[in-house]
């Protein structure tokens, strides 16, 4: 089963080779009571230790496919399910230091059964998470 928090404890790690880190990634539980076609996700704003990484620049890996925001918005054949967290990838040359970081996510979702004036819904959550390598 998944953890209650949106950002999962496992899966928080740097990307790229040691000495040449290109960024970091983490696992994100869908903040919704039902799974959705990936196109209904509108990206994730990320802040780590005060540094912001807007949703427009981050990619998401859903059902094994890595998608830019533009591709995500047309990804009607993929589903972000409630039981399978997505990977969020953030570009940051050098990556994150080993240790505990304060990470905030703003997960943007479009729900067609809400008036469009109220969309996207943005679900925010902050937690501390640890980079090991």
């Amino acid at each position, binding site marked *: 089963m*998944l953890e209650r928090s949106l950002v999962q404890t496992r899966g928080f790690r740097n990307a790229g080779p040691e000495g040449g880190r290109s960024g970091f990634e983490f696992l994100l539980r869908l903040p919704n009571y039902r799974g959705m076609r990936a196109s209904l996700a509108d990206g994730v704003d990320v802040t780590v230790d005060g540094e912001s990484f807007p949703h427009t620049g981050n990619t998401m890996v859903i059902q094994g496919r890595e998608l830019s925001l533009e591709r995500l918005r047309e990804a009607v054949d993929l589903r972000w399910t409630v039981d399978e967290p997505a990977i969020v990838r953030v570009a940051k040359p050098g990556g994150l230091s080993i240790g505990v970081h304060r990470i905030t996510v703003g997960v943007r979702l479009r729900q*067609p059964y809400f008036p469009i004036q109220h969309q996207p819904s943005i679900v925010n959550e902050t937690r501390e998470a640890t980079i090991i390598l």
Partner: protein
Amino acid sequence: MSTQGFRYGVSLYSYTDDYGTVLTLEDCMAQIADLGATGIEILGEAHVPGYPDPTTAWIDQWHTLLERYRLEPTSYGSWIDTRLRLSRNMTAVEAADDLVRDIRLAARLGFRLVRPKIGVVSMDLKPDPIWEEAVERALGEAEKCNVVICPEIHAPTPIRHPITEDYVRFIERTGTKHFGLLIDTGIFQDRPLPYFPGETEDMRTTFLNGIKVDPADFLLVARHVVFIQAKFHHIDNQLVDHHIPWEKIVPMLRQAGYTGYLSSEYEGARDPWVSLEQVRRQHALIRKLERSLA
């Protein structure tokens, strides 16, 4: 219970956030059975792993668990995501395809009711006009699968409203027995919900204060109602519901001759396991009121 009375069930929506983090499907079924309830309601795209194509192993497991806990499938929630893309709206044919897909899956899982949640085009939640053609195209499959399609009448939409009237007109025009109404008891809410963390007066949408539909309005549409989602948010340890006036609703349902399901839909605080206790309190409260009418 007398066969004349209500039937009792629970929607797995009640266990949102607990389901998949601290509760498995079997845990939920054990809880529902322990209430003395007989019905289980699910949301396809939430509670069926691998939706919309679950493995046959999972489908077997579903039926095994139903048998073990003596539960029957009631209503299956689906979505018609009309604004699936930013670039264009869904067509009626695409919407019908989605609905047919869910009708077939629901029938395989033993459900007799499918509740499509349809994308909206206005602040008062008018469904996308493609709903009518989409549903009409799916009626044949509904008939074949012995399923009734039932959109929900949900706050802020009351019973006396053009949206509800359009649904009733559709039933009258087509003469179908495979389309009906689902009533969400949130429409009867007559006291405000607590503000969510960070919510201000400006942010509050009026319907969170309760649209206060007169329970007697149920009589106007009772003949078309196939299911009731017993929406609630908080019941205290004296069995007092803080928002939904069950003492007025229950006698009205009885007067209307309703003998279908009351399917708990808890929508309150999401701290772990609170939902389990809240659903029990609701069953105690409603059964007590029902008994007092006997």
